[in-house]
């Protein structure tokens, strides 16, 4: 029997989901909806009695105090008159995360006969609406056809999965012409080029047979840009055109645009990012660029590891699911590092198109940026909060060009005992897959993210989109750490992109492995051997377990209801052999799989672009400009997002993302105590500014590194032990101009890391971020995220950014220059300019070290880094976050330029600058520490709630109440 049950809020209970939907519909510009009601629908299948059904409904499905239910409400949802019913259910094959919990809950009631449990969401729209408006609301807001459907629309319900009939499929490569080879690659979504296809053909010619579909898929996945980073490891012929445009106002002491003389690059990664680490030889680097995340020392007992990934392509198509599985995936990186680390914090950085992007201009196949943003935030919230990992740090930036490719960076740091930092698979160890079951979800994720998106991506790549189940991952994590502490396994890795193919392939790289695919536990019947192998179903990890430990291992997993299954064995054949029901379906040499990819050769070109310098008339009153900057989407408060993340779970949060007299000011970085009974901490920060890349990716990269370090200093940290990660999100690297910028940014990374003495320990790139509509390609701005992790000796020395006491002195440290290129001030005038902020690393290091000493001595009451929006925005944020006024005198700002302009001093984004609050009686002590460095005593904190800036002529150029400033800053993203 199939029962349909509908649960809704009792009369008088606030229907938060319905009202939320109502607000979103209004945002869509549809005015006719008067009200929205929400109901949860459940479909239960099984042999149960009336009484049992009643028990399930009353004791499990509803909250008796606030909800009521009805059974079998009349068949199909019926819309009538002004009442429009939209019921959204998951597509067959998509994991319904509630199902497992519900089935358990039903069993707990002592009821055994239920075989399936499905959920759906029902929205009842009240109002005069046309069919097309209902359709718009459904498609734009309520469901995503990649994973869901509207019930009753046409032939829905739960299609039974057909039983799979085994047949080995061979792909005819041996007889294929070049054209056919390319066809095979394209049709199979392998994203392999002709050279690569030829290399595969050659391998099989030697073997004297054609590959199976699975073998070809395995090679494609292993060789994908996503897994192999072919661009970074390939050969690049690089040419550079820099005229060194010496603009009039450029001062001689500034570093000129460096010319990179190298023309032929063999492995960009090794020549830049990894080279810096190698040359810096930091003794506290434990494992770099090897494992699933980079490891550094923490204290005598523990190491910490850190990894940041992107999940851009899936988030473009299905924001909730994409971000959800993005964070779920990066959490498994520390879990799969060494012998498994416990995740202690998350960081998330997003780039979207502006939320007020006109619907009429949206390219076909894209979702509106506001929906993307809301979906992504919900996805991160859902997974991070449910995993019990605090999301402590992040950033959100906006630009039109992210309309087809939003960027979703997710990062996780973990902590692990020193002696658990390395893994070693042994011959004879069993291959054990643990966690969730394998389904048809996420097929082709690795290869799909190695190509550009088109407006057809949403149909052809729908299999690559999934939703996660954080509780599955959480319980898996709990048991893994137990098994780790009992020394039950010798290696672990996650099944990420490429699924088992990637996990077993990597773990068995040195030795070889044999896997019996029919042993892999499946969500449902009907998967082919090939699908089992490459499925990217979430929440799975692979362990290598010595035979003598297997019983104990299986026992402890079973005790906490986590599946663990032996699916094969690591061998010494150096071959990957896969069997399905006794048939050999894959027999590949590990060496070919991992080393056989032909090195790619690409061309790269870089030319400095010349941008228009905006003609901005100097205004006497700059208050409106400050208000506009505070309302700039990049700068404004992200409180709406931050509060939805649990940033304090695990109890280690010290400096929270929001701080201030009413806890709503923007912290520069996060400080977390990963070991509760120790006062040692971690500082997590990020540097990102794609706007500088419009002018010169070299200085963008340099600035990103510098910014991430500046934030650490601003929180009371030091340069003593800082490690960084690089995450490049770029356009199509097959296009020389895109690749040219990437090369130049990489050199910026190298120089910055080297000069500041901060090694890269891990990184990741996401290329091909372009969206093709009718042959026209939109590339994202080349964007680099630098994520920094620093070990802090004593978290009690943490400094926060908000003004503390009236009468205290306000300083600026660092040199302000005419560096408004790429600034948010210029952006207000739709201009980019050319004077991009540069970095003087020697000077910057001196400033950083001096401020670290001052923090350490407890001199600093508050400190804030000057970044987006310059000194004016930084000082204003300090003032309104502390609820105290400020008087600032621009004549005291160390300023180096030919044009003396109030607006330039206020809004220039020169690097390596801080605003600092010092008590009057500490003035001497503080200034002593700063001797020889550029600094200015620029004002003081006043008890009035007024923020005033006096220009070079001594007259007030900004005069604004704190409430007004704060409102400008908080209003734009107060959704």
């Amino acid at each position, binding site marked *: 029997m199939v029962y349909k049950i509908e649960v809704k809020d009792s009369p008088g209970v606030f229907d*938060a989901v319905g009202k939320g939907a109502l607000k979103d519909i209004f945002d869509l510009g549809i005015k006719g909806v008067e009200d929205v009601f929400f109901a949860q629908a459940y479909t239960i299948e099984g042999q149960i009695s009336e009484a049992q059904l009643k028990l399930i409904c009353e004791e499990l499905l509803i*909250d008796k105090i606030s909800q009521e239910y009805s059974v079998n409400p009349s068949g199909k949802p019926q819309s009538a008159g002004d009442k429009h019913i939209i019921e959204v259910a998951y597509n067959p094959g998509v994991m319904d995360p509630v199902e497992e919990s*519900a089935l358990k809950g039903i069993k707990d009631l002592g009821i055994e006969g239920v075989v399936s449990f499905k959920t759906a969401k029902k929205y009842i729209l009240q109002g005069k609406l046309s069919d097309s408006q209902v359709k718009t609301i459904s498609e734009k807001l309520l469901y995503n056809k990649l994973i869901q459907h509207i019930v009753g629309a046409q032939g829905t319900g739960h299609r039974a999965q057909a039983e799979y009939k085994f047949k080995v499929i061979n792909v005819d490569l041996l007889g294929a012409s070049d054209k056919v080879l390319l066809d095979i690659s394209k049709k199979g979504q392998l994203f392999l080029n002709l050279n690569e296809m030829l290399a595969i053909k050659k391998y099989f010619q030697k073997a004297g047979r054609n590959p199976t579909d699975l073998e070809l898929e395995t090679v494609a996945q292993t060789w994908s840009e996503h897994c192999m980073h072919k661009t970074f490891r390939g050969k690049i012929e690089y040419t550079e055109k820099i005229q060194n445009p010496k603009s009039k106002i450029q001062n001689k002491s500034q570093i000129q645009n460096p010319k990179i003389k190298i023309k032929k690059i063999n492995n960009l990664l090794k020549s830049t990012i990894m080279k810096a680490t190698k040359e810096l030889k930091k003794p506290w680097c434990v494992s770099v660029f090897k494992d699933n995340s980079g490891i550094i020392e923490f204290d005598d007992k523990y190491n910490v590891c850190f990894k940041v990934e992107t999940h851009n392509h899936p988030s473009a198509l299905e924001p909730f699911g994409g971000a959800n599985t993005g964070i779920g995936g990066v959490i498994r990186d520390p879990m799969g590092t060494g012998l498994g680390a416990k995740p202690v914090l998350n960081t998330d950085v997003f780039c979207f198109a502006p939320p007020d992007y006109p619907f009429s201009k949206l390219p076909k196949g894209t979702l509106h940026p506001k929906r993307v943003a809301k979906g992504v935030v919900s996805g991160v919230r859902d997974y991070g909060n*449910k995993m019990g990992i605090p999301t402590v740090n992040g950033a959100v930036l906006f630009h039109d060009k992210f309309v087809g490719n939003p960027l979703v960076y997710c990062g996780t740091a973990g902590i692990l005992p020193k002696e658990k930092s390395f893994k070693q698979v042994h011959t004879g160890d069993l291959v054990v897959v643990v966690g969730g079951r394998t389904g048809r979800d996420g097929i082709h994720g690795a290869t799909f993210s190695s190509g550009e998106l088109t407006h057809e991506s949403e149909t052809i790549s729908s299999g690559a989109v999934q939703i996660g189940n954080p509780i599955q991952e959480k319980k898996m994590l709990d048991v893994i750490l137990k098994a780790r502490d009992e020394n039950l396994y010798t290696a672990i890795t996650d099944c990420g992109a490429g699924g088992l193919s990637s996990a077993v392939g990597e773990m068995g790289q040195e030795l070889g492995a044999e896997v019996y695919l029919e042993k892999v536990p499946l969500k449902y019947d009907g998967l082919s051997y090939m699908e089992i192998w490459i499925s990217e179903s979430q929440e799975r990890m692979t362990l290598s377990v010595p035979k003598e430990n297997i019983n104990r291992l299986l026992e402890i997993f079973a005790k906490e*209801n986590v599946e663990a299954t032996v699916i094969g064995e690591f061998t010494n054949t150096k071959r990957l052999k896969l069997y399905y029901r006794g048939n050999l379906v894959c027999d590949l040499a590990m060496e070919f799989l991992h080393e056989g990819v032909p090195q790619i050769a690409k061309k790269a070109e870089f030319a400095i672009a010349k941008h228009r310098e905006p003609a901005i008339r100097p205004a006497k009153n700059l208050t409106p400009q400050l208000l506009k900057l505070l309302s700039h989407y990049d700068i404004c408060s992200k409180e709406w997002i931050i509060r939805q*993340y*649990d940033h304090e779970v695990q109890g280690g949060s010290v400096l929270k993302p929001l701080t201030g007299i009413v806890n709503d000011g923007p912290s520069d970085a996060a400080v977390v105590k990963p070991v*509760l009974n120790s006062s040692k901490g971690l500082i997590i920060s990020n540097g990102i500014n794609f706007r500088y890349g419009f002018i010169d990716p070299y200085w963008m990269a340099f600035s990103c590194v510098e910014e991430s370090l500046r934030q650490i200093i601003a929180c009371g940290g030091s340069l003593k032990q800082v490690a960084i990660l690089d995450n490049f999100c770029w356009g199509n690297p097959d296009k020389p101009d895109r690749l040219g910028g990437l090369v130049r940014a990489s050199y910026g990374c190298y120089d910055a890391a080297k000069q500041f003495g901060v090694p890269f320990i891990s990184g990741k790139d996401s290329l091909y971020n372009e969206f093709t509509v009718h042959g026209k390609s939109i590339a994202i701005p080349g964007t680099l995220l630098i994520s920094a992790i620093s070990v802090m000796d004593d978290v009690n020395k943490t400094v926060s950014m908000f003004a503390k006491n009236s009468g205290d002195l306000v300083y600026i440290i660092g040199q302000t220059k005419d560096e408004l290129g790429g600034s948010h001030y210029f952006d207000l005038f739709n201009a980019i300019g050319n004077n991009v902020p540069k970095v003087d690393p020697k000077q910057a290091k001196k400033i950083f070290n001096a401020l670290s000493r001052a923090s350490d001595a407890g001199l600093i009451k508050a400190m804030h880094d000057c970044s987006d929006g310059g000194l004016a925005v930084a000082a204003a944020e300090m003032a309104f976050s502390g609820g105290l006024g400020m008087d600032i005198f621009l004549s005291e700002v160390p300023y180096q330029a030919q044009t003396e302009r109030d607006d330039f001093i206020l809004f220039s984004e020169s690097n390596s600058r801080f605003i600092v609050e010092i008590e009057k009686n500490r003035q001497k002590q503080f200034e002593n520490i700063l001797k020889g460095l550029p600094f200015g005593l620029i004002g003081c904190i006043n008890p009035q709630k007024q923020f005033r800036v006096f220009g070079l002529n001594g007259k007030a150029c900004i005069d604004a109440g704190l409430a007004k400033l704060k409102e400008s800053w908080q209003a734009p993203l107060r959704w």
Partner: protein
Amino acid sequence: MKKPRVCILRTAGTNCDKETAFAFEKAQAETELVHINQLVGGNKKLADYQILALPGGFSYGDDLGAGKILANELRFKLADDLKDFIKAGKLIIGICNGFQILVKSGLLPGNQNLAQESSLIINDSGKFEDRWVYLRAAKNSQRAALCVWAKDLPETIYLPVAHGEGKFITNNKITLSRLKENNQIVFQYCGQDGKSAGYPDNPNGSAESIAGICDLTGRILGLMPHPERHIDPAQHPRLVRDKKIKDGDGLQIFINGVEYCRKNL
């Protein structure tokens, strides 16, 4: 002196277990993280502990309502053990998801047949929110006297909340007045000045600004805010640097529970 033993109950999705254990240890208790399967399967016995702590998290993903499935497990699989535990005069604390479980299992506000009389439903804001709140815990009143967990607290304490379903409601007005009359309302959200205030001081729209209640014996406490997240001044959102302040506001709640066991059990 023998330390009271605390059973920190965990299951799939529990995620504040370790810091709750740490807080109890700081309050001089002995703690053990116990999986629900161990209690249901009989490998561990509730009777061996003096305190049962239900920590925060998302037990079973909050699927079908926050705390619902674990609450049912307690009702249908551990009912007798729980009744004995309560009868023996032992203590229970439920924090956040733990409070949701206590309410949905009928252990709070508590009546003869453990029927559910109140609930914690989706916040008025419609979303999960993490923010710090002031709580009124009246000093020297009967209220403080009734709940053993709330002794010796200052007028107002400062703790973070982090939840999506924390709006306290009752089945009817009678229950609500009964809670007041019986002094079962232990914590109420308030402004910094200790007075009643609207959102966001009351972060979820709870009736009577209720943040925590106890049963009629005062030994079972449930609260939405997280006392374990403020046991150390370093956790304070404004980084209080007063050397005289040794502990965070939440620690006293754990000390109260532990001290009570020492003296009475």
